Structure formats: structure tokens, C-alpha cells
């Protein structure tokens, strides 16, 4: 028996509903239909009256979750695609994110963002918005890259007394599998060494962790051992683990699938440059998507995001230095 990344998300919601009566689910088409990606399949039958179909009203969906949280509920909101959270943006960054600081009222809501690119999805069903939300005080942004993290970090997100933006990557939904869910290994806020190495460090997160691992494999053939750090959460960002890795390797490639201006890779590079300047044997590098909307056709989409070959090429430049 094996479990996919998507199934792990369903199982985590099952567990959250089972363990805590304060948990409920709100989102478009998540009840009878089980969600556009089936992440809530059968949960309405297993937990009658706790899984609700929402109107196409992302602003009101988030606002209602905030009000419910004030009353002690722990709602999980599913956005049908991360891209559509743009119309719930204000309630997330100005209402949810400020509630505790302004009024001392905790706001334990979890917002699930089906994120990232897949072939043929185009500009509005492919976005990665973690950097947008991470810029605002008062939010926790998690970006699970493994089946185990998809499961445990969703449970942890629901348990946290603050708003959590849970960025789940659609590219991993079906073909990322695990034999079973092991024990919880790390809390939110701690990064993971996905692969140990000596010659260079890739710091990345979400689906790009797997591209990074493949690129590391490729460079192994040339005798290079590349360390891959999986951030797991981009805010808080586990600077200590990043610096410790750079201390070992002396070389940094910050890798992300999002747009190139700003974002997670800029935050990684600037933290390392500021706090571990003398650990660097070479200029730190960044690799992001191209600075255009995300293309529909696979020919373009494959070239828009970082791939094993562009990552490997960047690593070679970094190592050649």
C-alpha cells in the first residue's frame, strides 16, 4: 500500500476533523464533489455537517473563516487554485494577518493553496504566491515538498494559533508517493537536509526540491556532492540550517519556481550574504522562473520554470567559479 501527496492532504484533513470538533472545511465544490482535485473526497460523508460548499466568493470565504476563528473554530479553507486567492488577498493580509497584533485575538485559520505549475494550466492556474503572503507580518507560510510533510505540516498548520498559508504543489499531487506516513520528524520552522553534500548547497522548497535532487544526481556523475536543503516553511525561514549548510559547502544556489523579482530566492540569498558572507567561496546564485506570466503550452512552460538541466547548468557555473 502506498499514499500520494494528495491523499496525504486528504488524510490530514480527516485526522484534523476527527481529533478536533472545532475544525471545519469551507471551499468551492469540496463537499459532495470532494473538491476540484479530490483533496476532500468523502470527508462530507465521514463528517456530516462539517464540510461546506462555498459560493464563488474568496473574500467572503476568508472573512467568514476569520470570524469563525474568533469564536474558537479552526477552519480550513480550500482555494480552488492558489491563483484565485488574489481575490481573497485583502482578507488574508489585512484582516487575518493583523487580528492578533491589533486585538490580541488568535486567528487559527489554515488556507490551502493548490499551487505551482503543471503542463497546460496557463497563467491563472499555475501560480506560486508564497512570497506575496510571506511579505506580510502575521502569517505563517508553509511549502511541503514530501508526502510526509504534506500530512504532518497540514496537521501542524491547523494546530497553530495563527493564520497559516499552506502551499500544496499540484505537480506533486498524483505521482509523488510514499509507502506510508512515518512519524512527525520536524516542526514547522525547521528546514530539512534532503540530501547531504560537500561541494555546493541548493536551498529550495516545494516541487523544486525534487528537481534539485535530480540535478544533484546528475552532478554526482561528475563527482560533485550537492547538498539540498528543503526549507519546508518559507516564513519562518530556517536561517540557521541554511547557514550551517553553506558553512559546509561554501557555495549557494537559491532555487524557486516563482517569478524572479523578489521572492523566496532573494530572501535566501540576502540572508546568507548578510549573515554568512565569509562562509561563501563563490558568489551566491539564484534560479527562478522567467519574468513573464506562466505559459499554457508545454513547450513554453517547460522552459519557463527551472528544470533539471537549467539547475545542473547553474550548479556547474557555481562550481566552476
Amino acid at each position, binding site marked *: 500500500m502506498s499514499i500520494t501527496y494528495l491523499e496525504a492532504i486528504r488524510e490530514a484533513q480527516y485526522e484534523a476533523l476527527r481529533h478536533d470538533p472545532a475544525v471545519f472545511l469551507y471551499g468551492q465544490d469540496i463537499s459532495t464533489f470532494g473538491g476540484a482535485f479530490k483533496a476532500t473526497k468523502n470527508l462530507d460523508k465521514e463528517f456530516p455537517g462539517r464540510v461546506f460548499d462555498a459560493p464563488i466568493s*474568496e473574500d467572503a470565504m476568508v472573512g467568514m473563516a476569520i470570524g469563525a476563528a*474568533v469564536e474558537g473554530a479552526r477552519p480550513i479553507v480550500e482555494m480552488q487554485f492558489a491563483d484565485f486567492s488574489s481575490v481573497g488577498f485583502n482578507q488574508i493580509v489585512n484582516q487575518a494577518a493583523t487580528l492578533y497584533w491589533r486585538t490580541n485575538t488568535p486567528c487559527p485559520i489554515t488556507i490551502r493553496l493548490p499551487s505551482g505549475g503543471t503542463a497546460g494550466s496557463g497563467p491563472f492556474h499555475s501560480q506560486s504566491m508564497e512570497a506575496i503572503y510571506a511579505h506580510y507580518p502575521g502569517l505563517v507560510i508553509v511549502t511541503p515538498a514530501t508526502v510526509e510533510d504534506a500530512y504532518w505540516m497540514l496537521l501542524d498548520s491547523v494546530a497553530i494559533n495563527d493564520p497559516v498559508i499552506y502551499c500544496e504543489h499540484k505537480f506533486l499531487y498524483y505521482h509523488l508517493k510514499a509507502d506510508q506516513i512515518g512519524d512527525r520528524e520536524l516542526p514547522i520552522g525547521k528546514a530539512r537536509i534532503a540530501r547531504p553534500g560537500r561541494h555546493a548547497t541548493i536551498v529550495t522548497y516545494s516541487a523544486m526540491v525534487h528537481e534539485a535532487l535530480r540535478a544533484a544526481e546528475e552532478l554526482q556523475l561528475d563527482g560533485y556532492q550537492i547538498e539540498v536543503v528543503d526549507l519546508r516553511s518559507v516564513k519562518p525561514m530556517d536561517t540557521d540550517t541554511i547557514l550551517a549548510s553553506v558553512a559546509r559547502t561554501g557555495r549557494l544556489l537559491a532555487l524557486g519556481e516563482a517569478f524572479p523579482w523578489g521572492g523566496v530566492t532573494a530572501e535566501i540569498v540576502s540572508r546568507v550574504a548578510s549573515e554568512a558572507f565569509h562562509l561563501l567561496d563563490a558568489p551566491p546564485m539564484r534560479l527562478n522562473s522567467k519574468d513573464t506570466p506562466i505559459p499554457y503550452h508545454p513547450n513554453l512552460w517547460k522552459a519557463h520554470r527551472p528544470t533539471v538541466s537549467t539547475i545542473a547548468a547553474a550548479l556547474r557555473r557555481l562550481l566552476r567559479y
Partner: protein
Amino acid sequence: MSLAETIQHSGTGQEADFRPRFLSAYQHMLLARVLEEKLGALYRAGGRIVGGVYVGKGQEAFSAALGVQLQKGKDIYGPLIRDQAGRIAYGEPILDAVRTYLGALTGPMRGRDGNIHRGRPQEGLMAMISHLGSMLSVVAGALFARRLAGRLGDAIGATSIGDGGTSTGSFHEAMNMAAVEKLPIIVSVANNQFAYSTPNNRQFACENLVDRAAGYGVEGVTVDATDLGACLEVFQQAAKRARAGGGPQMIVGRLLRLAGHGEHDDASYIPDTAKKGLGARDCLAVAEQRLLDEGWLNAAEVKEMYAEARRKVDQAVSKVSKEPLPDPFKENWQALSSADLVEGQHEA
């Protein structure tokens, strides 16, 4: 569902409790008016109040009439810009207002937010953010959660919006959602003819905002918001319907904003025609006249009420003036309640 009806006549006074409700509402209005005049004076004097002052002058009857229908500790209230009277009627101490305006550390917002952006969400009083329209879904969500937890009982929620705020997508989404969930919520729409400087004809094209009630599938009623008696009757009926499971209740009040958008604004853009119109009656004066006409109070008693209100306000202000202001070095600069998830700042 019944279509929007219009109640213009004043409260009949048939109900036994009409007179005491009228009296207490009047007192709330009066205290709000006196408090806001004081805040305005402090603002104009300069120094003490930083930022703006936004008053509900002319809107006290509409606001208080809703507030008296709500029971603190049971019902949920999401007041907006011009609800000082409603806040007092609901039970918010005027100290909360003064402390927030002066930014005192002792207030509910601890100097972190100011003026009308205050509340105590955990006690049922939501603290508005500035983005208009965005509080309705929050109040709705609180009711939704209580119903889910089986502890809603016959509690209701209430929130306010202005003519301008009805143009926000946020308000529309929340109104529609509240209707779909048939939540027990009163939505009071104060059409004071202006959104800042923008007149109704640049804000919406329907004849009466209550025409929107049918489109949401909710009850809609219009009332002359300068008439406390009428307001009391309309909100009492709305609260009854909401507590009885009648779903959202939209109450549209007709009035005129009798002040600037804020105390910085002389409102010179308001034309005389509007100032001479029916909506321009001062609801406080109208209520006072009725009290005297009905013989519920005599001039001396009214006078004493003003004096009493002034004492309360002056006491509050002088008390708060001695209270500590926030200190950046003692401040807990953490936006998360989970201290272990707070990042250090990466400046070096």
C-alpha cells in the same frame, strides 16, 4: 419572502417597553454626541489626538436603535465608522473610545490601532479594519461557527455599512454568503447621501438601496433614520425576525451626514438642497422634542442629562490623559501569537 416595505411613521409607542427603550436610546445618543464633540475639540486643539476623528453626528438614532437590540456577552456586533452611539448602546465603555483615540496603552488597541478601529473580538465586539465591506463576512463567520458548535441559541449578529460601502465586492460577497447560510444577522445600511464627498448618484443607480434586499433573498426595510421612534421599531422587528430564524435583515436608513467625513473636512461640497432636505433633521433634536412633547422628560431633566454626559466624558478624558502611552522599547513586536514562529529581523 416579503419584498422591501417602507416604514416611515414613527414608533407607535404601543409596546409597554417603548418609552424606556426610547429613553435609554436617547441617552446613548446624547452621550455619543457629547463624547464626539469632545474628541473633535481635542482634535482641533491639536497634539493630543494624532490622526483623524470620525463622528456619527446625525446618525446616532439609527446607530443606537440597533445597539439597544443587541445584548453584550450574547450578540455579536461589528460597528463601523459612525457607530459611537451604537457602541455605547451595545455596552462598549466610553473609556475604550477615549483610550483608543489617545492611543493609551490601557485601551483595547494599546496604541497599535486608533480611533474607530477598535473592538474586543473575543467579547463579541469586532474591531473594524479600514477596508470597507470586509467586516460583514467576519460577523457572519462568527455566527456560523457558533451555530456549528451548537451554541448559537437565539443570539444574533449585526454590522453596519454606508451607502458607499455597498459598492464594495467584499460587502456583496458577504451579504450573499450570509443569505445562503441564512444567518441571523442585521445589516444596517446608513445612506447618509455621501461617501466622503461622493453623492449617491455617483455611487449607485437604483432608486433605493433596499432594492438590493430582494436580490440577496433577504428582508429589506427602509426607515427615516432621523426618527428614533421609527428606528427603534424597525430594528426591534428586525431583531425579532432574525432571532426567530428569519435570516439576514437589511435595514436602510435615510439621513444626511451632519459633519465632515472626518473632523478635518468642512464638507463644503454638501449642497444646500441636501441640508434643507428631510434627512437633514438632527435626530438628537427630533428625539429631544418628542421626549418633551410626550412629557417623558422636562427641559430641566434634559439639561441635567447633558451635564451628566459632559461629566462622564470629562472624567474619562482626564483619567486617560494620566495613563501610560505605548513605549517602543517595552513593546512586544510580534505579529504572531506563536512566539516560537516569530522570525528575528535580518538586518545584518
